[in-house]
């Protein structure tokens, strides 16, 4: 799992997510099977489901965007929340729809988590490159990864410098929140300018080594026969799984 080609893993994960999201509404059994498959793979990869599930919580806040559907979907009412000026009525259909959306996204995120845990960032970026993703996009992703650490370091140093001078004397009036907000605003601004200037220097450093606006990529290792076989086997499984789910869920 860790050694498999990043391209293969990427295609499979995207395929998996696609099939999960195409499952008919309320196909909870199918989602359960899909999730068990993921758990199985996580054991094969010696990661275990605990890390996979824990890693998936990063996406939790986004899932809540689906919550209003509980109230906006028409169907058998469960209850009404009265806000005085207006009231909201929840429906069973809404609840089931939201449950489907939440489960689908949760399972999908876990698949992505598995990919990230079992692949180094470097391999993933190269995999994307070999999948013929636009070079510029790959370059942006890899630069972002490289400079995320540099930028957080810079931001942390600025915060520390501010903290070190944020003295308070007993009895003195506390500075206003508005003023402090302004300071933070300035910090964000100067972080932006510093990053901008850094980008100029990076561009010079690239130019100095022969970059002329055309990114050159490294040679490509052909996919092994076993990897092709895996790709088609899993793809076939996903398609039949999808067909079966749709066949057993006539109401969708």
């Amino acid at each position: 799992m860790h050694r498999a080609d990043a391209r293969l893993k990427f295609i499979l994960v995207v395929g998996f997510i696609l099939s999960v999201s195409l499952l008919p509404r309320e196909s909870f059994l199918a989602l359960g099977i899909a999730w068990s498959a993921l758990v199985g793979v996580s054991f094969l990869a010696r990661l275990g489901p605990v890390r996979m599930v824990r890693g998936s919580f990063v996406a939790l806040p986004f899932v809540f965007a689906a919550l209003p559907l509980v109230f906006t979907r028409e169907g058998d009412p469960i209850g009404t929340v009265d806000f005085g000026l207006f009231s909201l009525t929840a429906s069973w259909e809404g609840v089931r729809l939201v449950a489907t959306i939440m489960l689908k996204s949760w399972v999908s995120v876990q698949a992505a988590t598995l990919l990230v845990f079992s692949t180094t960032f470097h391999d993933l970026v190269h995999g994307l490159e070999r999948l013929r993703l636009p070079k510029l996009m790959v370059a942006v992703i890899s630069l972002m990864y490289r400079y995320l650490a540099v930028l957080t370091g810079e931001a942390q140093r600025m915060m520390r410098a501010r903290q070190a001078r944020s003295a308070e004397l007993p009895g003195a009036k506390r500075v206003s929140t508005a003023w402090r907000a302004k300071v933070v605003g300035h910090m964000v601004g100067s972080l932006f300018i510093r990053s901008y200037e850094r980008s100029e220097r990076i561009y010079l450093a690239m130019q100095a080594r022969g970059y002329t606006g055309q990114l050159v990529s490294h040679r490509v290792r052909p996919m092994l026969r076993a990897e092709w076989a895996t790709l088609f086997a899993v793809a076939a499984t996903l398609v039949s799984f999808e067909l079966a789910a749709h066949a057993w869920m006539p109401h969708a």
Partner: protein
Amino acid sequence: MTMLSSRPETAAAATPGAPLLEIEGLHFAYPDGFQALKGINLRVHAGEKLALIGPNGAGKSTFMLHLNGIHFPARGTVRVGGLAVERKNAGRIRAAVGLVFQDPDDQLFSPTVYDDVAFGPLHMGIPAAEIDDRVRRALEAVGLAGFEKRLPHHMSLGQRKRAALATVLSMDPSILVLDEPSAGLDPRGRRELINLLLELPQTMIVSTHDMRLVRDVFPRTVIMDGGEIVADGPTQELLQDADLLERHGLELP
């Protein structure tokens, strides 16, 4: 040291005895009108190691950007191995002159050390089969053998500085132009750098504020101030002239 200097085409272009680097009447002004270089004349022969010193804002960095075809002369000429630094020659100039910037975080922009060291050779069109070998040799030369898979942000400043040097050594340049290579290094990192600079066979132009580095590595020193070269001679002589050093905001080692 297996790394050989002087790429064939630059070596062929230079007639024997002629300077490898020849700068005549170089002027440069920034778009805002600031006159950064006011008539630089300099000749450097193959194998020379030259320190470029002077106060901040003297024009050292601007000057160095001219040696690699990042800036082009507004007036005057810069020739590398007989080849004029002009827009149409930029590619060949950049292959002959390795420029390393001060902050390794600017120089190392790829996810792994390997990618970064391979960047230059890849853009020079070196055959893929040769690239691994070039990367390995360059990392070996700077004492970072086996660092291919490492991530720059997990390395010490000294290691990153040396990796930055490897990113141009892999291009096999005949001239190395380094901007403050010892800035921010601890004593051990500095010592390792000094040994490395002494070992490398390339012609070198190194800007620095580190006067002990100047004394220990470079037989020749050039002092710049206000966009001009104000002194050029054997390091030993210049470093004895306390008046001269003080006039240009420098100090004895």
